[in-house]
């Protein structure tokens, strides 16, 4: 082939750092014109060595460290850790605190899914929807603050139970909030599922097939949108989910078919918001009376953990998918011998590659955001031409602009 006819592909690195990023990720895209040919993902820009630090702390201290792994999943990480320790040391949890754990877990899911829905709307340039979504989310956050004293880091968990009760006088406010959320859900569900703008940017975009979801070990709404029935809450009984009963939310409940695209991921998350409201109401109704913790004396608890020789695994369903913590105690030390954390985005990194291949540059923000990766800031983008080594700098704002332009283009077609 002569030199003039040689096909040029470009490399676009996107990422990794922006001050506002929760989870910086570096993408390297191989681009042919507008089309993405290949993707490479680089992690580790904010590896904070949390596991290494945790192996030098005692188990009670780790709860608060685990809470700070993620700003949004500040309940499920300590829950997975507490369950791992409870399994390793065979510590029982009182029934009442099992139900309280469900309430807080589901409140976190509502906050997280609504946060995501707002970000997704912003990525396609639909900012009025962003404000509407976050207005509804604010009500859920107010309830979290009312019940725990904090909006985000709740500090409610301890090994063998929870630290604060949900009392009779709280029920009124919970009921009011749930009614408000149901009202908000109706409105949001209508806009997200029926609006033309959302549909044309999300249908057929960022497809993950059933086989890929299964083989690449995807988790959470990402895998359920591709039709894989996998939800820890329904798969194994933990806390009170076994009593209440949880269904698998797949997009065919609404549309009758599974496409595995961004639109399906929106459906799954919306269905789960509704499901969470249901679960909270059921948990409040069925909550038995009883203790909050099985062992209120912390030194006694710690000495029991210190004497334990064994290992345990705690899994639970975070808003983004399965979270798993593994601990091993050697029977001599306060601190765990090994502590391993696997967050849900860790398992959803590889599915990004089949999703992004074949899409356009303007689709990067919405497809990347569709797994809810704690990552939507795509700053410092440089386009490098392989042949003449010319460099163009693109930033996050420009990429966002491209995305908005695509929405406008499609609208006026």
């Amino acid at each position, binding site marked *: 082939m002569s030199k003039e006819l040689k096909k040029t592909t470009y490399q676009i690195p996107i990422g990794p750092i922006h001050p506002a990023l929760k989870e910086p990720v570096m993408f390297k895209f191989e681009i042919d014109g507008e089309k993405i040919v290949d993707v490479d993902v680089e992690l580790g820009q904010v590896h904070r060595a949390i596991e290494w630090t945790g192996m030098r702390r005692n188990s009670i201290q780790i709860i608060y460290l685990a809470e700070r792994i993620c700003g949004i999943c500040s309940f499920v990480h300590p829950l997975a850790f507490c369950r791992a320790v409870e399994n390793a040391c065979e510590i029982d949890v009182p029934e009442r605190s099992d139900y309280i754990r469900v309430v807080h877990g589901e409140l976190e899911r509502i906050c997280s899914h609504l946060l995501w829905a707002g970000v997704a709307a912003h990525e396609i340039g639909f900012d009025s929807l962003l404000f509407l979504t976050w207005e509804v989310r604010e009500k859920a956050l107010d309830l979290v603050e009312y019940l725990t004293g904090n909006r985000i880091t709740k500090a409610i968990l301890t090994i063998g139970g929870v630290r604060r009760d949900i009392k009779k006088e709280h029920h009124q406010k919970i009921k009011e909030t749930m009614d408000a959320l149901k009202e908000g859900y109706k409105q949001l569900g209508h806009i997200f599922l029926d609006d033309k703008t959302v549909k044309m940017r999300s249908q*057929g975009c960022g497809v993950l097939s059933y086989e890929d979801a299964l083989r690449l070990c995807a988790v959470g709404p990402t895998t359920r949108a591709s039709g894989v029935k996998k939800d820890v809450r*329904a798969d194994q009984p933990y806390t009170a989910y076994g009593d209440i009963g949880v269904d698998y939310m797949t997009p065919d409940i609404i549309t009758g078919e599974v496409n595995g695209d961004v639109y399906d991921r929106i459906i799954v998350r919306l269905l789960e918001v509704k499901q969470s409201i249901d679960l909270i109401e059921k948990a409040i109704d069925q909550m038995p009376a009883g203790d909050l913790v099985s062992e209120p004396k912390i030194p006694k608890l710690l000495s029991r953990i210190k004497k334990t020789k064994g290992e345990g*695994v705690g899994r639970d369903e975070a808003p983004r998918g399965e979270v798993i913590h593994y601990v091993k105690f050697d029977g001599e030390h306060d601190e765990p011998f090994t502590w391993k954390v696997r967050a849900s985005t860790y398992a959803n990194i590889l599915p990004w590659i089949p999703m992004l291949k074949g899409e356009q540059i303007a689709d990067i923000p919405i497809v990347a955001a569709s797994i809810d990766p704690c990552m939507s800031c795509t700053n410092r983008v440089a386009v490098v031409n392989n042949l003449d080594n010319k460099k163009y700098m693109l930033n996050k704002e420009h990429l966002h602009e491209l995305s908005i332009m695509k929405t406008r283009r499609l609208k006026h077609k």
Partner: protein
Amino acid sequence: MSAKKTTKKKEKKQDKMLSPEEVVKYFKDEFKTKIKSAEIKRRTTGSKKKEFVNIWIKIDKSIFKDFVKHLCNLTYPHLAVACGNDFGKTIELVYNFSIYYGNNLQEISLNVAVDVPKSKPEIETICDWIPGALITEREKQEMLGIKVIGIPDSRRLFLPEEFPKDLYPWRKDEQTKKGIEKLYKNLHEGVKRK
């Protein structure tokens, strides 16, 4: 917009579900003494006391790949993560699988432990059976210094380029402790780039 890609939804082949005891027996029949130990742990939760099952199996390194192949034949597992424990002379790798998910409350958590000697820390890749294992295998390479034979992509994952090549943060020996301490002390002076 790119042409609409459709996914044909195939119903997951319904495998006959074995009880936890039968799962252990299935592997013991095949690998005999190469299964070093197997333990079934049951825990109950909630007010209806529904139980969930953890199976802990320790196997010999020589059958590891066959074991995973055998497991895939039984039912396609979900690999959550591989953890590692440094015991001084050996490193224990624990692969956390879950099987029978998608059937209400029937999931079994299967934890498979393998010992590898620290003098020759090598294990075979399972990416050809479970492509999703790549991330966790790459992490074990850099954090524990395990050499994964046949890994499709052996680059570093989390650690930066300038991090010393022979320092593995999750190991617990003196050499690692000293190495980490040195890095820790120099933290504010900046790590020298090569």
